[in-house]
């Protein structure tokens, strides 16, 4: 066996040596033969002649020896490859189109697979990623936050989880070498670091003591924060830094690739982690929902078991605390799913789209190969007649197809690399785990698999067809081409029709998305974005969202920051050059901040079955003017609403409709919690303003409350959350002025410890919220565009072949009196038949699958008349365009030349 292999290899690699050896061996035999004859008395010349006769054809012998040595297969394969290369070089146009087509299809698929693999499939870089779950009350298909008490109870009662922890999203201000900077500062329990198996770059993570109430003030910072704000100080550990105005000792530095919690986005890389130290509020109130609970399942425990236990725990919590936890329900979702869940359907759709494009590409290449095989019919017929087996006939075509796939692969790899580079250029946080996306070894394997599939699809089928055709028929009547209906042409036609169908599907998708984007962009925002800029301001001693406190010491309530800082700042802002109007709003539209509160209507019975809840923001005077939001009734909050004037509140239309149906809300009073929340005085409704889009364009406006920023008592919970953490300013300028420098200098003068950030125009904020729709449209549109181009090429190719095949027939028709325009019509009709069949298939498929894409659409029905009619018209036009050139060539056939040609 080994000798066999060695001989074959030697024959392959040392062909020349082997050949000359064979020569020598045979010549030796010949010489011996001659010598024998000479010795028996035959004259030398005669001896040579006879010997040559006896020898026979030495070439044939050599051929048989070579056969016996078993190299025949490989040698003929090498021959096929050389031949195929030559054929491809001879028709550069065809080769270029085919390779490009395949490259686009392969490249797009490879890139898509890479993204999907890295984002959806690859496990998170934590200790036991498959056992990590997030727990909370269900909210749609996701989870919402819950209270610290619920976390504690789950932690104490669970028997299916090894470790339980929780975290709270938060932002804060850090004092670094360049002054105060905003940073994300999530709170985590020490068990979270344990659960994740996180290994710090320097130092350590939190100890259990540091997670207790009243524990030491410490922090763990991120590598990037360490490098940027603290100059990679080697003595960072146990150095004290100022976070929210409070000194904290740095006990550890986390490496760059530790990004928990991922929900805080890209900024987490430059943030820091604080230990959750339960405050009085956290330990008594079950209604303060700021915490997300994480757990690590015990090995062997299934998700179903965990979920069952959580239902039981929820039940026990309800028994323990019936009033507060009346409708608590808890659910567990694998942690990775919470991150990637929202994008999974999008990616799935894209995978399908990109797969369709590859199919179209393969169909095109197959068509092109079939068309070429028509030209080589004679050659194949002769080969078949000479006895070549079916496999031997298929080989050249398959080799050509394999070569095209190979080139397509190489080019496709470049396309994929380019596409992935583009993905990295997207704004951060567009795609979860975007930093992880990169070309890996698995990609190469997938590439090879895709290439194999494309080869088989695009070369195998045509090769099969070609090798099956009856050589006799071909040799006898091929070139006459009088309307012969060969299987080949039907296959080509079917392929083109298929391409048209697939393109129709993609185009319908594009059209629907375009319509959706159009709707989103024209949603009635409820405000005017012209020349409005927003930015955030955070005090150096920001409280943070999660650390809410209520103080009952009303007598010695500290002066609100709103009065101390924001009011003078606003005055200066309004007088700054170029500024038309300025206002404060804790959460303008698209700010990403969404605070909710429950409330009661004074004078109406507290109906606990119907919780009244609304979005709540604090605003200054001038807000409605900046945003150009109409005041429907009464008046809007003004600058005269200070801490010493009557407490007032404004509501929006949705709230008026929801909670005051058929009544006049003006003059009614709202209770925002009384002593429990520190909002002791009730607020009188003084005005109703128009609805504004608040979180995203596709969501309807929520019921909203607006209180004057100076009427949030500094002893209340709302003070920390609304005023003392982060506020937004909205500024309307007179022209296209950049406000940042002026704003920064105002703050530097009046409030130097405040960190300003997130300067953006309202238009930018709106665009950002539509970004994913726009991206989806771009991608689908690109795919559809590619598909249409390929359809044009495919249709053109098929019709061109058709025309050249039937030249003689057209010549005869013209000679017999047909008009050129009649011939033109004939070819056009043929083309449109293909398009028509394809369109029908495509449209029907689109109709059936329409319900699948409902989730991506906004106020567009899946059976959208505009989209469908547009697609039909477009493809008919495309078909006619592609058919035009061959059709014109057909009608220009000179009968005499055509008849004479063979």
């Amino acid at each position, binding site marked *: *066996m080994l*000798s*066999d292999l060695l001989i074959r290899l030697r024959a392959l690699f040392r062909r020349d040596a082997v050949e000359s050896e064979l020569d020598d061996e*045979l010549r030796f035999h010949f010489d011996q033969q001659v010598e024998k004859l000479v010795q028996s008395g035959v004259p030398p010349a005669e001896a040579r002649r006879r010997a040559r006769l*006896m*020898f*026979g054809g030495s070439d044939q012998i050599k051929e048989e020896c070579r056969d016996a040595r078993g190299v025949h297969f490989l040698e003929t394969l090498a021959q096929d490859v050389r031949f195929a290369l030559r054929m491809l070089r001879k028709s550069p146009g065809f080769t270029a189109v085919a390779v490009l087509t395949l490259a686009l299809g392969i490249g797009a698929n490879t890139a898509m697979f890479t993204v999907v693999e890295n984002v959806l499939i690859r496990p998170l870089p934590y200790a036991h990623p498959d056992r990590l779950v997030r727990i909370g009350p269900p909210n749609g298909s996701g989870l919402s936050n819950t209270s610290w008490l619920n976390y504690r109870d789950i932690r104490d009662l669970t028997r299916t989880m090894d470790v339980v922890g929780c975290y709270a999203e938060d932002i804060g201000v850090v004092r670094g070498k360049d002054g105060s900077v905003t940073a994300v500062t999530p709170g985590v329990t020490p068990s979270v670091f344990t659960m994740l198996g996180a290994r710090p770059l320097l130092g350590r993570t939190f100890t259990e003591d540091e997670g207790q109430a009243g524990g030491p003030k410490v922090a763990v910072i991120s590598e990037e924060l360490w490098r940027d704000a603290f100059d990679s100080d080697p003595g960072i550990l146990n150095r004290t830094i100022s976070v929210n105005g409070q000194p904290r000792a740095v006990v550890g530095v986390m490496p760059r690739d530790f990004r928990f919690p991922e929900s805080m986005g890209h900024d987490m890389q430059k943030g820091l982690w604080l230990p959750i130290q339960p405050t009085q509020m956290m330990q008594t109130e079950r209604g303060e929902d700021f915490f997300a609970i994480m757990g690590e399942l015990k090995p062997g425990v299934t998700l179903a078991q965990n979920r069952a236990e959580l239902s039981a725990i929820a039940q026990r919590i309800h028994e323990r605390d019936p009033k507060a936890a009346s409708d608590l329900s808890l659910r567990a979702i694998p942690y990775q799913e919470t991150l990637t869940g929202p994008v999974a359907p999008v990616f799935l759709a894209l995978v399908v789209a990109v797969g369709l494009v590859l199919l179209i590409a393969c169909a095109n290449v197959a068509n092109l190969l079939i068309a070429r095989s028509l030209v080589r019919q004679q050659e194949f017929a002769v080969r078949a007649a000479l006895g070549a087996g079916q496999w031997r006939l298929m080989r050249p075509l398959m080799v050509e197809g394999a070569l095209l796939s190979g080139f397509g692969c190489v080019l496709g790899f470049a396309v994929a690399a380019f596409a992935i580079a583009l993905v990295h250029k997207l704004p951060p946080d567009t795609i979860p785990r975007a930093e992880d996306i990169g070309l890996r070894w698995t990609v190469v394997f997938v590439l090879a698999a895709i290439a194999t599939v494309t080869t088989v699809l695009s070369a195998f089928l045509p090769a099969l067809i070609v090798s099956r055709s009856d050589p006799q028929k071909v040799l006898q009547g091929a070139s006459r081409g009088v309307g012969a209906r060969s299987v080949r042409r039907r296959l080509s036609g079917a392929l083109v029709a298929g391409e048209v169908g697939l393109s129709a599907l993609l185009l319908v998708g594009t059209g629907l998305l375009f319509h959706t984007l159009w709707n989103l962009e024209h949603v009635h925002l409820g405000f005017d974005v012209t020349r409005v800029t927003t930015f955030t301001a955070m005090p150096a001693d920001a409280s943070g969202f999660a650390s809410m406190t209520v103080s009952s010491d009303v007598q010695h309530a500290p002066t609100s920051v709103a009065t101390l800082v924001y009011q003078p700042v606003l005055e200066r802002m309004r007088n700054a050059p170029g500024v038309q109007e300025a206002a404060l709003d804790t959460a303008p539209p698209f700010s990403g901040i969404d605070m909710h509160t429950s409330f009661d209507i004074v004078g109406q019975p507290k109906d606990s079955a119907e919780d009244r809840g609304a979005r709540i923001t604090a605003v200054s005077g001038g807000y409605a003017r900046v945003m150009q939001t109409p005041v429907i009734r009464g008046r809007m909050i003004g600058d005269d609403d200070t801490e010493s004037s009557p407490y007032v509140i404004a509501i929006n239309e949705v709230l008026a409709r929801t909670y005051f149906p058929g009544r006049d809300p003006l003059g009614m009073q709202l209770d925002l919690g009384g002593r429990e929340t520190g909002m002791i005085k009730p607020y009188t409704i003084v005005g109703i303003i128009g609805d504004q889009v608040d979180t995203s364009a596709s969501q309807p406006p929520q019921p909203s409350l607006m209180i004057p920023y100076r009427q949030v008592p500094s002893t209340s919970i709302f003070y920390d959350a609304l005023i003392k953490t982060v506020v937004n300013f909205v500024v309307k300028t007179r022209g296209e002025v950049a406000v940042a420098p002026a704003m920064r200098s105002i703050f530097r003068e009046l409030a130097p410890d405040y960190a300003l950030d997130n300067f953006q125009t309202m238009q930018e904020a709106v665009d950002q919220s539509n970004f994913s729709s726009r991206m989806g449209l771009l991608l689908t549109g690109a795919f559809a565009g590619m598909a249409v181009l390929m359809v044009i090429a495919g249709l053109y190719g098929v019709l061109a072949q058709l025309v050249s095949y039937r030249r003689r027939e057209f010549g005869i028709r013209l000679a017999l009196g047909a008009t050129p325009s009649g011939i033109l019509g004939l070819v056009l009709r043929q083309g449109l038949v293909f398009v028509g069949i394809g369109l029908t298939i495509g449209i029907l498929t689109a109709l059936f699958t329409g319900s699948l894409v409902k989730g991506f659409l906004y106020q567009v029905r899946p059976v959208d008349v505009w989209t469908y009619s547009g697609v039909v018209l477009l493809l008919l036009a495309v078909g006619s365009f592609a058919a035009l050139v061959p059709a014109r060539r057909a009608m220009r056939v000179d009968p005499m030349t055509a008849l004479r040609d063979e």
Partner: protein
Amino acid sequence: MPEQRIDLPQGTLDLLILRTLALGPNHGWAISERIHQVSSKVLQVQQGSLYPALHRLERRGWIKARWGASENNRRAKYYELTKSGRKQLETEEGEWKKLAAAVAQVLETA
């Protein structure tokens, strides 16, 4: 001069070559001469069958080749039997004898 040509089936030729080489290494010419002589000039192996057979046997590993000097000092390719070739020879010889005996029996009685 043209001796009676009996067409040898391929398998039989292999057997004869192996048997000839069992006596010692030899080149193609000598093998064909020897078979011719020993068969009382009945069997004349043509080059067209001999060399492909030799190459095939070499590929199967039953004979191995090396270049050497011939009796008249010319460069010639010598073949010799390998161990597995010897085993193969035994097997094939046994099968041939069985076959020949069976055929002879049928011819005699039928």
